[in-house]
């Protein structure tokens, strides 16, 4: 149903704002998997990701009256997800917030020094997971900003400008984060590529 509808994401959201509930269903079908995977890889916990996922979609529903198609819908959606994740980190992991609130222009090198959470390290995952676990672990090893840039590019299909807009950073910063993320992932998963 989502693939059959010729309307763009922005057109569907505008239709939903005007009361068309079916438009929201189509829009939801287009973005449900991407957003959920993004959250799962960002949180490292599927249960928590579900909670965040539901909360983000409810924010989209409640913000429909103020929606204006100033950017792509995916940019708007992932910006909401980005802010919701920051709230989540503030409550549950203060150290991760420090990563988000660092200077975006100078965070290339310092951020890379922060390790991922211990339960997401590759040695713990490799014993019980196959390829999926390897990739998840590789993603988890990435610093949060780099992982977010990578996930937004892979799951959201967003450009540098859109990622920069969603995360509130500069375009060159996003480009740098993305380059570092890919380099690290290639090194981690080089036996699979």
């Amino acid at each position, binding site marked *: 149903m989502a693939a059959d509808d010729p309307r763009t994401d922005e057109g569907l959201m505008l239709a*939903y704002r005007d*009361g*068309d*509930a079916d438009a*929201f*269903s189509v829009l*939801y079908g287009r973005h*449900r*998997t991407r957003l*959920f*995977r993004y959250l*799962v890889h960002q949180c490292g916990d*599927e249960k928590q*990701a*579900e909670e965040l*996922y*539901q909360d983000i*979609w*409810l924010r989209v*529903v*409640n913000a*429909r009256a103020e929606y204006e198609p100033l950017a792509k819908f995916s940019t708007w959606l992932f910006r909401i997800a980005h802010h919701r994740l920051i709230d989540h980190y503030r409550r549950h992991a203060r150290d991760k917030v420090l990563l988000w609130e660092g200077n975006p222009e100078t965070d290339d090198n310092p951020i890379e020094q922060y390790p991922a959470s211990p339960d997401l390290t590759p040695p713990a995952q490799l014993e019980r997971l196959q*390829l*999926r676990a*390897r*990739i998840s672990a590789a993603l988890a090893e990435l610093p949060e900003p780099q992982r977010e840039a990578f996930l937004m*590019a*892979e799951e959201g299909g967003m*450009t*540098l*400008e859109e990622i920069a807009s969603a995360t509130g950073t500069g*375009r060159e910063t996003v*480009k740098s984060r*993305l*380059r570092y993320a*890919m*380099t690290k*992932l*290639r*090194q981690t*998963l*080089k036996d*699979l*590529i």
Partner: protein
Amino acid sequence: MNEPKESPAPGALPSDAGLSRLYQAAAGAEPSAALDAAILRAARAAVAPKPASASLPWWKRLKAPVAVAATVMLAVMLTLTVDRNPPEVARESSQDAAQKALQRAPQSAPQNTPQKTSPTAVLPVPSTVPADARTDRSDHVGVVKGKVPAASVPATAAIVDHAEKKTKAVESVPAVPQLAAPPAAMESSSEAATTRAGKLENAEGRSSALPGRARSADAAAAPAMAPAGAAAPMLESTAKRAAPRPEIVWLEEIRALRRQGREDEAARRLAEFRLAYPDYPLPEDLK
């Protein structure tokens, strides 16, 4: 060699096709069906139309308009009622008309024939009522003002009834020797004046609220019931009892005395009249 291959476009993403393919092949996480259903249900509920207000009963929907309409109608009806029934103004205007008619009477009196002037044509008028009693019309509108004693209110009501009976009695007496009909204006005004004077003077006599007023409906009716020959003594006693009296009454009495040839008494009455009303312009026949 392991560096991501950037596309030549300046705004393009750094891309790695092998890494991207591997990631997409391994990605398998999806939201549960229950989570999808909950989100879609919440989204539909958010844009679902609210229950229509037409389900309310009509009297609830029209409560405010009906209240406003009733208020406006009540205000309009009250305004029209007050406009069409101005109690103060109507009574005041009839009283003024009576007074004006009485004031015109002395000027037209010399043109009357001697037979037209009779004690029966002279009726008590409200000008004898003191100013405070005339201006205070609380007995007319049923409002008792502060300066009227509370004890006099029921007495006034009873007195009004009594005065009306008296007035009817006077009107019902036949065979009064009417020497002449009064002028039309004076007749109409004197009728109303008789009634009011009877009411007021009865109130004076019985409630003692207005002392110093000796004239009453009885006194006014007495000349009408008496024969013409007995009019003079009765007028004399009446004049003695009523120090301030209407000018027209006084002058008619003086004329009556002159017609009867009692010039001395007429001159004495005229002197008393001049003392009581020094500024009143005397008719030509009495100068």
